[in-house]
């Protein structure tokens, strides 16, 4: 079990290095993409390696001259990596998400490397518009055509169906780990689970799925861990993975993570793509369905509310508190946060907000705040039990 986690950890910790080696070894192309909705199955079906570009812990240096300090850590880190030449081996970068900061980042990348192929087609963000499904289908079709042109290949329906099935299987296996966690039977930490999900955004999916199957089997066979502490639900961090030390901190201060909606967590693997019918229709369906399953503040949908979802999930997973990780300068999250606070107040759910930054995270202060959160919740529970 640990050797699989170590393999995943190595890939998650150096995604660019892994992808470069993969390209050297296979001689096949690598396509980078930005979070959160680009359908990477298209890239796989074209015979290339899809890699979701990650924030790295490295301090931002070169990037300081190209992006302002009041942008989120993900964007600043991506610009910094690009200016250091880390993405030059990509055969292209494709994305579909409409985030104003991300659009700026993409332009900085294109500007500083005019020879690069960076392709964008904007997915409709008003999910309940009557034309939204058709428009999403059109955008996906355009992405497919541009990818075919970029790689000089044709993506057949059969290949796309095969990729969809593989990625579904991969997601299903990870979701099995989430189920074990909810049942209190998972021996993996929050750090380990992030390695699993993050590496699935990067690694050759056949290899990842094979290792993942071994891991799931081992986890199912393992005795249930002795988990003691306050069950909490982790929410937030839309594009970037929370720093591993922060996850460790949560679990070392009397809390046990029982569920999450992190992008480097359940949000990423929540939804499968239908395996029959027209594959582009299926990908369009997936795009809407995943927002219904795990609502995202970057999408506008009158019927999908992140706050309601969180109240339901906290209740369903038996969490006694919600820890919200807000990446500093993440605008959609900042807009939605008051809604979440009020929903939790109405539902009597204890909430702790931790605002994270790329540089200089106040971990000691966070430790004290998490400990206090756990302690106050424990006392309240005790007082409630006494009547």
């Amino acid at each position: 079990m640990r050797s699989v986690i170590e393999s995943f950890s190595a890939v998650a910790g150096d995604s660019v290095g892994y992808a470069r080696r993969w390209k050297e070894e296979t001689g096949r192309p690598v396509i980078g993409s930005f979070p959160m909705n680009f359908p990477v199955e298209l890239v796989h079906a074209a015979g290339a390696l899809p890699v979701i570009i990650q924030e790295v812990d490295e301090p931002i240096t070169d990037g300081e001259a190209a992006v302002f300090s009041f942008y989120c850590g993900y964007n600043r880190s991506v610009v910094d990596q690009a200016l250091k030449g880390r993405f030059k081996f990509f055969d292209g970068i494709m994305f579909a998400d409409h985030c104003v900061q991300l659009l700026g980042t993409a332009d900085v990348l294109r500007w500083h490397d005019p020879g690069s192929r960076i392709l964008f087609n904007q997915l409709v963000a008003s999910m309940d518009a009557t034309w939204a499904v058709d428009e999403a289908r059109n955008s996906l079709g355009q992405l497919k055509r541009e990818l075919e042109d970029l790689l000089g290949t044709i993506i057949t329906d059969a290949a796309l169906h095969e990729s969809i099935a593989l990625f579904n299987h991969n997601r299903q296996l990870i979701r099995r780990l989430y189920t074990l966690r909810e049942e209190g039977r998972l021996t993996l930490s929050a750090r380990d689970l992030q390695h699993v999900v993050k590496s699935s955004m990067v690694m050759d999916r056949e290899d990842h799925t094979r290792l993942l199957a071994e891991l799931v089997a081992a986890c199912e066979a393992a005795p249930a861990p002795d988990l003691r502490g306050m069950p909490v639900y982790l929410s937030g961090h839309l594009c970037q993975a929370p720093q591993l030390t922060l996850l460790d901190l949560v679990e070392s201060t009397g809390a046990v993570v029982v569920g999450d909606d992190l992008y480097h967590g359940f949000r990423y693997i929540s939804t499968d793509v239908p395996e029959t019918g027209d594959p582009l229709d299926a990908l369009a369906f997936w795009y809407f369905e995943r927002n219904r399953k795990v609502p995202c503040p970057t999408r506008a949908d009158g019927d999908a509310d992140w706050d309601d979802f969180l109240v339901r999930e906290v209740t369903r997973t038996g969490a006694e508190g919600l820890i919200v990780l807000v990446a500093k300068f993440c605008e959609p999250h900042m807009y939605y946060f008051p809604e979440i606070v009020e929903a939790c107040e109405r539902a009597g759910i204890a909430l702790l907000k931790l605002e994270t930054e790329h540089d200089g995270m106040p971990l000691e202060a966070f430790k004290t705040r998490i400990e206090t959160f756990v302690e106050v919740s424990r006392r309240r529970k005790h007082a409630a039990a006494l009547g």
Partner: protein
Amino acid sequence: MPEHTSMSAKVRELPPRRANRLSSTRLGSAIVNDYWADLFSAKEQGKKVVWYNGTYIPPFFHAHDVAWVHGEAWSAYLAARHVEGDAQMAGESRGYDRELCSYARTHIGQALLDMKDLKDGKLDPQSPKAIAISQLPLPDMIINAYPYCSSGQQWDEMIYRLFDKRVPIFHVNIPLLWGGRKDAAYLAGSEMDERKTYVAHQLREMAKFLSENTGRPYEWDRLSEVMGYIKKSAELRLEAMDMCTATPSPASFFDWIVTIAHVNFMPGTQRLVDFFEAMKAEIAARVVAGEGAVPDEKYRFFFDGMMNWNKIGWLAEKFAANNACVVAGRYTHMSFWQEPQAIDLADPVPGMAHNYLACPNNSGAPYMIGEIDRLCDKFKIDGMVMHVSRTCRGMTNSQHLIAESARKHGRTALFFEGDVADESFYKDELLNTRLEAMIESLDSRRSVMA
């Protein structure tokens, strides 16, 4: 005393040399005042009210006889009158972070204040007059139509939720013209063609939405009529702007900034045409007389970034006092009805979609910056004044690239921090120092060339 200090003192201690503002803009003030007065009594007039954000879609509302509130404009209105503080505090009290768009924080905060008044019984919710007492009429419909800025969509989603989803909302998606296809060009190519068709379709659906929520059929002929005035006004405005290639420039960025409301959301009427006619005539007369917007124009600047609404007069005087005329800007010279020739009055919707897509931010950086460079050449710009509007990332996104390109074209550039509607981000001392350095650099360059 080092030269740096003496120069710094020079920038600060120059006797006030008032900017020579156009007198015709006063006519425009009356149009704006009448618009707000009319809006504040919209409920009493029995009009439905739409709150909208984003691009300049009011002709659709005007043609359908509904009142319109532009959220950004309302926030700018409060900021320009220095009364935005209470609204922003109300937003902050609910948990909206200071790093969020200050337009949004002001707009949402004002809605919170209005709703609190209603809840506290300060207003009788049944009385139209009472509803209007806090001036801004509450919405019957919400429409979001932002090019480029994702934050704008999220802002309106929060407004929708503030009203418990009881006010119907409609979104118009105006996708970015990324320009990655082989046939891409500025506002041309297959991407532009497809996006134009898509946006036009949504605008027609928006008219249906207005019709459904007012119970009246949409009058397309009326839209053509309104657009006739808008198109004429836009043409006059662009012709007047072109005259500012003269030296000295007869009008400045600050004259244009106080007419943003007119080109952005004022009703399309003959009165609007008359206003731009008068403005053009005054500018033409100044060209003949050799009269400049800055009496002793020595430097010509381009203002990049969103306006700092609570500092208009302050900044106008600061630059004028240094013999610097800010001649043009991205916000004033590239953002509103820039392509009137695209509008066919027999069927104005595709041309309107074309103009909405032409928002400068909505074209990928290489295309947008190409246009900025072209404008700077045309207006003989010496230097760029980059207003880093802290909470408006749609405007700050490409500013490093714009400055880099400007330098390649032989222009200098300064950055100063501020914001659209949150005064606390503005640092006057930083602008003083950087303006001083830029002027010094220009003088030095000129002396070398001489």
